[in-house]
Structures are given as structure tokens and as C-alpha cells.
């Protein structure tokens, strides 16, 4: 196995590196203008004039060293395998970074006249069309900033649609017990009661169970396909039918769309609203937690409910349209996370129709291959052991030791590889959720499986010791982080 040791820098807080009088950046200023105002601060009324500002004082090199050292204590996709389930940590093509760093992207102002940004708007218009085709939806908006915001937009549209049709009493959203936490949270934010539906022993949601919880109060259902166990929901069409029969609308959580490109489309399954996570399926970098982009697509009957703006094309060219008749309103300032959208567009153009289908084929192949490379005694599948995996595989750690999955997660960090998602979905005992993605060469999949199998032996024999040993810090005390709670420094 590979030897790995993450950098340790013992780097102080930036405020501790400060020394009065240093500066890390020169400020452009015009002496002829400045000389007109003896004390520019006095242009601010005294009642709200600021005294001094406390900020650290460092040279440019000191600032760079500080953050470069921090960066060396941060694991990333370009350093090693990062199979965080549900997050689709695939490789982010460099050309997308270069294109989005061009002056004509960076310096475009969202309030400049549409005539002066035709290049960008034409790309966005095309991207909306691409996303419609990939999902089988009628119309998309790019304006939502992340998957969770896309979800909120989706449930708000469902709410408004029912209200506009005299169905105010529909105040329940059905959410499977295997769903991402964002689903119930988004539904609650939109004012809905959350009705839980249980998945069966194979990990799938049955249309029968959905019918059982449907009523005249049902506004809709949020459904993730493939689900968070990495399984395709075989009764998805029947589930959509059940909810539609009850007068509800179907919301597709697109977090797992990397499994289905060119294979199946939510629109064809019966969904009415869809969100996509461009930072997952369409390879825009995750930025240490963000930015992302969560465009939302809908069928024809909901097209006028989308959050604004949308991009429209007319004889006069491309423009932003804020005037959709039934819009739920905007959820974010301006247009959307434009520089993220541009990266996703580049990714789609690099792969094209057949390349995107290859992406899903190979992502699914990788998940199944990795699953079968694991010791089945050590890592049994909790649900649907006879079923194919889609983009990810969820297994249990076969151990009575408390926190076994956490220990496995910490141990694999020592191999120079990132842990899977752990303890999710909530319905799985000691869960490891592994999503290798199509980016990983088979050699890495072999290495990852071998590492997990080896760790399990160590866990069983009690030889693991305190893990991790080779990360920049040993196991972090997360309880102490909240007691006492320190969210800032006073210096």
C-alpha cells in the first residue's frame, strides 16, 4: 500500500501573523483627486463614521505562504480519490477554469444591457436547452445557486400551482425515509408538512406505500432516482402515477443524475419538476463547499412558475425575462451562478451526446466494480443485495463496535484517499456510501477496495490503533468544538 503523509505546518491564525505597518496590496489612487479632499473620511457623516478597522497586517508573500500552507492541509480531487457518496466528486476539467477566468466572463456586470452580453446569453440559452434534453423537461431556469435552492424553488412552484388552482388545502409533501436531508428541510421552508414514506426491505419505495399516504392534502412528492442507496427505483413510474392520481405533483431530486445520462430521463418517468446539481453531474468544482449551481426544469404546465429570470431568444437577440406570468419570484440576486454555468456548458461540449452517455455507463460500471471488489463479509449490502448499483454503492460495516463506520472512514484517510459519506442514508446501520465516479481509473478502484478490506481486518483484529495517523492532525475532537463554542478570535 501507498505511504502517505499529509503536510503539517502548525500554521498560526492569520491575525497572529500580523505586524503593524505591513501591507500586502497597493491601492490605486490619483493624487490630483485625493488632494481635493483633505480628509476623505469626513465625507461620511460623523454619526456613522468609523474609527479604525482591525485587520491583520502582512506582506503579499506572507499572505500567500499562509494560504498555500493551509491548502497543503486540504485533501482534494486532484490529489486522490474522493468517493464521497451523493456528492459526485468527479474531475473538473482545467479548460473550464481557464474559460471562466477570461475577462469577458469575470468582468461582465449582471445589470449591463442585454445587447452587450449576447455572447454569454447565447451560451446560457443553449445550456437551458441542453438541460431540457438531458432531463426531458420543457423549460429550465439557471437562476438557482445550489441544489437545495433548486429544491426550494421546486416546492414553492408546487405550492403556487395548487393555490392558483384553488387547492390551498394541499399542504403535505411526501418524502421517502431514504431522502437527502435537504428534501424535508426544503419542503418545511416552503410551508409544507412532511409526510414520510418508508422504503421496503430492498431499499425501494413501493407505489403501494405511496398510495397509502396520498390524500386530498397531498401537494406532491420529492423523489430521488436512483435513490440514496444507489438503487434505481423500479416502481418510479407507478409512484408518479399514484401521486398524480391523488392530484399531487412529482419533484425529481437530481443529485444522482450522474447515473442516468442518456439512459433515462425524469420527464419520461412522469416527473413535473427537476433540479440538477451542475457541480455534481456536470463537473464544476465543489470549491471546498461551494459554489455550485442548481438549475430547475419543469414540464409545460409549470413553465410560467419558474423563478426568474430565464433566458429568451427573439429576433432582437437574447435577453433575460423577468416577466413570467405565475413566477414564484426570484430566489437569488441577478442571473445565477454564471461562472459555474459556463463551466458546465464547457463540460457538456467536451463530451457531447455520446460522451455523456459514456459518463453514466462508466460511473455505474465503477460503482458495481468497486462494490464487488469489497469483502462481502466485511461490507454487506444492507438493502437489495441482488440488485445492480447505479452511480454509488451503500454498504454496512459488519461490526458490533460502536462507531465502526467512523473508524473505517478515519482509517482510510491514512491511505491518501478520502472517506466515503458515512452514516447516511439514515436507514442503514453503520453506513458507508461510496461514489467512485467515472473519473477514477480502475487501478484506483482496486487500491480503494484493497484499502477498505485491509482496514476491516485491522478493525476486527483490533490492530488499527488511533486513526488517522497521517493526516495533518489526529482525530479531531468535534464535541469540544461546540463546548466551549469559539466562532471567532478576539485579538
Amino acid at each position, binding site marked *: 500500500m501507498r505511504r502517505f503523509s499529509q503536510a503539517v505546518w502548525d500554521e498560526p491564525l492569520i491575525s497572529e501573523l500580523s505586524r503593524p505597518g505591513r501591507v500586502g496590496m497597493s491601492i490605486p489612487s490619483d493624487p490630483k483627486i485625493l488632494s481635493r479632499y483633505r480628509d476623505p473620511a469626513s465625507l461620511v457623516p460623523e454619526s456613522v463614521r468609523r474609527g479604525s478597522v482591525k485587520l491583520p497586517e502582512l506582506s503579499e508573500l506572507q499572505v500567500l505562504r499562509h494560504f498555500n500552507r493551509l491548502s497543503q492541509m486540504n485533501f482534494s480531487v486532484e490529489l486522490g480519490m474522493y468517493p464521497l457518496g451523493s456528492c459526485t466528486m468527479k474531475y473538473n476539467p482545467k479548460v473550464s477554469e481557464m474559460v471562466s477566468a477570461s475577462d469577458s466572463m469575470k468582468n461582465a456586470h449582471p445589470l449591463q444591457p442585454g445587447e*452587450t*452580453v449576447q455572447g454569454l446569453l447565447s451560451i446560457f440559452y443553449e445550456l437551458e436547452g441542453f438541460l431540457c434534453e438531458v432531463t426531458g423537461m420543457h423549460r429550465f431556469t439557471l437562476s438557482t445557486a445550489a441544489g437545495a435552492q433548486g429544491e426550494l424553488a421546486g416546492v414553492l412552484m408546487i405550492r403556487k400551482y395548487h393555490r392558483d388552482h384553488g387547492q390551498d388545502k394541499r399542504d403535505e409533501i411526501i418524502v421517502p425515509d431514504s431522502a437527502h436531508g435537504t428534501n424535508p428541510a426544503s419542503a418545511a421552508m416552503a410551508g409544507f408538512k412532511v409526510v414520510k414514506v418508508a422504503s421496503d426491505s430492498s431499499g425501494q419505495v413501493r407505489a403501494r406505500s405511496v398510495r397509502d399516504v396520498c390524500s386530498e392534502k397531498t401537494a406532491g412528492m420529492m423523489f430521488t432516482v436512483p435513490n440514496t442507496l444507489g438503487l434505481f427505483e423500479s416502481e418510479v413510474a407507478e409512484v408518479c402515477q399514484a401521486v398524480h392520481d391523488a392530484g399531487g405533483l412529482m419533484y425529481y431530486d437530481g443529485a444522482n443524475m450522474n447515473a442516468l445520462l442518456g439512459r433515462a430521463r425524469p420527464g419520461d418517468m412522469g416527473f413535473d419538476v427537476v433540479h440538477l446539481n451542475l457541480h455534481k453531474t456536470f463537473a464544476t468544482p465543489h470549491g471546498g*463547499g461551494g459554489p455550485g449551481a442548481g438549475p430547475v426544469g419543469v414540464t409545460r404546465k409549470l413553465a410560467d412558475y419558474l423563478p426568474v429570470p430565464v433566458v429568451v431568444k427573439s429576433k432582437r437577440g437574447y435577453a433575460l425575462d423577468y416577466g413570467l406570468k405565475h413566477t414564484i419570484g426570484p430566489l437569488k440576486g441577478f442571473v445565477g451562478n454564471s461562472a459555474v454555468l459556463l463551466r458546465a456548458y464547457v463540460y457538456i461540449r467536451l463530451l457531447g451526446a455520446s460522451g455523456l452517455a459514456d459518463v453514466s455507463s462508466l460511473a455505474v460500471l465503477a460503482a*458495481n466494480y468497486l462494490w464487488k471488489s469489497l469483502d462481502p463479509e466485511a461490507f454487506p449490502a444492507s438493502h437489495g443485495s441482488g440488485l*445492480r448499483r447505479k452511480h454509488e454503492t451503500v454498504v454496512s460495516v459488519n461490526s458490533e463496535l460502536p462507531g465502526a463506520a467512523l473508524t473505517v472512514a478515519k482509517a482510510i484517510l491514512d491511505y491518501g484517499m478520502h472517506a466515503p459519506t458515512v452514516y447516511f442514508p439514515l436507514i442503514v446501520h453503520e453506513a458507508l456510501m461510496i461514489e467512485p465516479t467515472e473519473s477514477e481509473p480502475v487501478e484506483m478502484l482496486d487500491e480503494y477496495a484493497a484499502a477498505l478490506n485491509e482496514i476491516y481486518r485491522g478493525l476486527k483484529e483490533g490492530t488499527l490503533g488511533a486513526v488517522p495517523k497521517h493526516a495533518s492532525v489526529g482525530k479531531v475532537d468535534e464535541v469540544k468544538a461546540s463546548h466551549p463554542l469559539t466562532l471567532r478570535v478576539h485579538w
Partner: protein
Amino acid sequence: MSDSQGRHPLLPNLDQSLVSKMLEKAGAASIDELFSDIPPRVRLKRALRLPKGSSEYEVRREVLARLGQNSTPPGSLCFLGGGVWPHYVPAAVESITSRQEFYTSYTPYQAEVSQGMLQALFEYQSLMCDLLGMEACNSSMYDWASAAGEAVRMAGRVTGRRKALIAGNASLQRLAVIRTYTEPMGLELETVAFDRKKGTLDAEDLQSRLSSDVACLYIENPNFFGVIEEAIPRIVEQVHSHGALAVVGVDPISLSLVKEPGAYGADIAVGEGQPLGIAMNYGGPHLGIFSVKDIKLARSMPGRLIGITTATADPGRKAFAMVLQAREQHIRREAAMSNVCTNESLMAVAAASYLSLLGKDGFRKLGEAIISNAHYAAKMLSKVRGVRSPHFSGAFFKEFAVSYQSAKSASVYRRLARKGVLGGYPLHRSFGVGAEAGLYCVTEVHTREDIGRLAMALKEAV
């Protein structure tokens, strides 16, 4: 695009012999068999109707050529503001945010291998608290507008009251976003009038609307017209005397010279971090700032928070971790404070490095350069016939409204653009400014010559 042998740089296992080997282990005869669990009725039985893949060179060339049709600096001058502003992004900031270790990682779920991002985000929180005069700042929201939406929701949540007052001189777009966010809670939004002459909030109108039903006042400082709310300390007192919260939206760069919201008692401060080392990016990604004054309110906040701790086995070893996660969607589900998950962490790193580069003196000097340039520009524009500049008599920082005696604001805005000068964003009629007016923004990036060019272009445009 795969080459003639079917290979692709992004797909290392796209190779027939490899695929066969992998299929064997997976126990499937073909790739199609791996998808056989998708019922035939929902399978896509045709190829996607998308363009064919292209090589990196071709895509880059075409996309850059199309983007080149945009009219942006340095080819044109940008004097637009309104929530996104032209500021200089130092090369060192771009270098830091281009570190793949930062930008290709994700939420630091495994703290031990993510100390770099965790410390950078903790430093962001801490620097922002210093800048804002607040006690807790989360590690980012999507942008100012959504942060304002979440803030008003939070005010409703913690006070249990049914009404929110919104300053009439706040951004209409942010008002619209606040409405989208709060409508499901049943919060009633009421707009507070502003002084048409000064551009500041009308304290009497505020007084008449305050009651024990009011959860908060949302007010921006400087406001959408760029005018500094000089009476804001008194306004906050007024709000507090009715048991309501003061939610203040700020442009953080104005805090170089304008008093920090914590100093005049703001309970929640939100804002747009874009000026702190983040490009305008045609509207995003930007940086939503969200902070609270009372540490007890941190437990009701949306978003990720990073705290300081130690290694478990070595109490002498400083470490960082995500804290108070029980507020969040992945733990609390439908009872979470918010559904936010993916945020704008990389932009928070940009802001932390930007503030560290500028430092105490640099930040002050920057503020002085901005306010001087803006006042010089307002003066120069006032010399143009048929133009009132600034339109409002209130003090301003970097943005100001300019009104036109006989020209329509929408035509001025378009005529300027045709001359390569982006500026004069028309102030919407629904503001009730009572004049044809446009909004201008002048910062450290504008030279005396640039301002001269703006004045010349405006002369021809009105």
C-alpha cells in the same frame, strides 16, 4: 469527444478490454445489463439530441470567441453597481483561489484531512466579525439577496411575530427575494417610505409602522441609492424599543469608513462579499454574508459554522471542525433552520485572503480612494447640462443617483452602453424617486480619465 480508438481524456476506463475486465468482476455481461433494472417503459430509447463532443482546443476557441462578443472591461468602462461592483481583484487572491487543493475539495466533512479549508473559513468568520462588529458569522450564504431572505425568516422565527418592515430605499430585487423566501411563513412585508430629497429612510414613517407585531426592520447601509443612512443608530434604537430586530444589509467595503453594524446595535448583519476579491462574474458566484451580534442567536442561524477545538488525543494541538450541525438539514431534516447545504466557501477564502492582503491601513486607504473618486465623479457629472448629480442630498460612499431633466433614464443607459460606457442603471419607477434617474458606481478602478470619459459620454447621451 472520443478519438478514433474511442478514448477520451475524461474517461480513463473507456477501453473495451478494461470494460470487459470490470464487467466480469461486476458480474454483468454488458454495460446494458447494468442498466437492466430500469424498466423498459422509462428507458430512453434514442441518443440524446446534443451536439457531438469536441476537442478541448475547439471548445475553448469557440467559447472564448463567443464570450468575446460581450462588452466588458478592459474593452469598455463599467460604472454599474446596485449590488455588484467593479473592484480590483489582486493577483494574489486569484492565485490562492486557484489552488486546486481548495477548489476541488468539498464541504470539510472529514476534519482531519480538511484543516486547511476549515482554518481558512474560520479566519473568514473571524475577519468578518471584526469588520462587521458582530460576534458570529457563518461560513457563507449564496449571495446578499438570499442572505437577506434567510435573515428576515430568522427574525420571524426568533420573535414569533408576523410582520417585517423593509426599507423602501433597499434594492427592489432583494425585496423580491425576501418576499419569495418569507411568503410561505405568512410573514407580511411592509415598505417604509424614504425621504425623497435626502434619499434616507423616513424615521417618522418607520415610527408609525412599528408595533408589537413587527419582527424586524430590514435596512441597507449604504442604501440602494448609495446614500449613507446617517440616522441609523437612532433607527436601530427605535426598532429595538418595539422589541423588533434590526437586520442591516451592507456593502463590506464601505465599512472602511462607515461605522460597522455591530457598533450601532444591528442584531443581524448581512451583505454582499463580492467586493472583497471576487469578480463580478455576471451575477455569481458571489458571497452572501450572514452574521449575528448575540452569540446566543448563532443557534438559530442558517448555514455552516466552523469552530476551534483540539485533537482528541492531544489537547495541546489546535484544530478546527464544523460546529452546531444539529441546526442543519442533514441532521435536523424538516426541523432544520434552513435547507442550505452547498454554499460559497471558495468565495469566503477569497474574502479572507483579500482582507489579509489589504490590512488595516490598506483597507482604510482603499475606502478613501473610493469615496474621493466617487465624489469627484459626482462633481464632474454635475457639470453636464440637464443633469442633477448627485440627485439625493444625503451623504454617499461609492454610488449615487443622477437625474436627467429631459432624457429618459432607460435611453441614457442604452446610449452610454453604445459608447462603451456601462453605467446609469435606470432607477425603477416603483422606487418612487419621482425623477428620471440612473445609478452610478465609482471605485478605485476608475481613473480621472475614465471619469472624464463618463462625463463626456453622458453629455452626449442626455
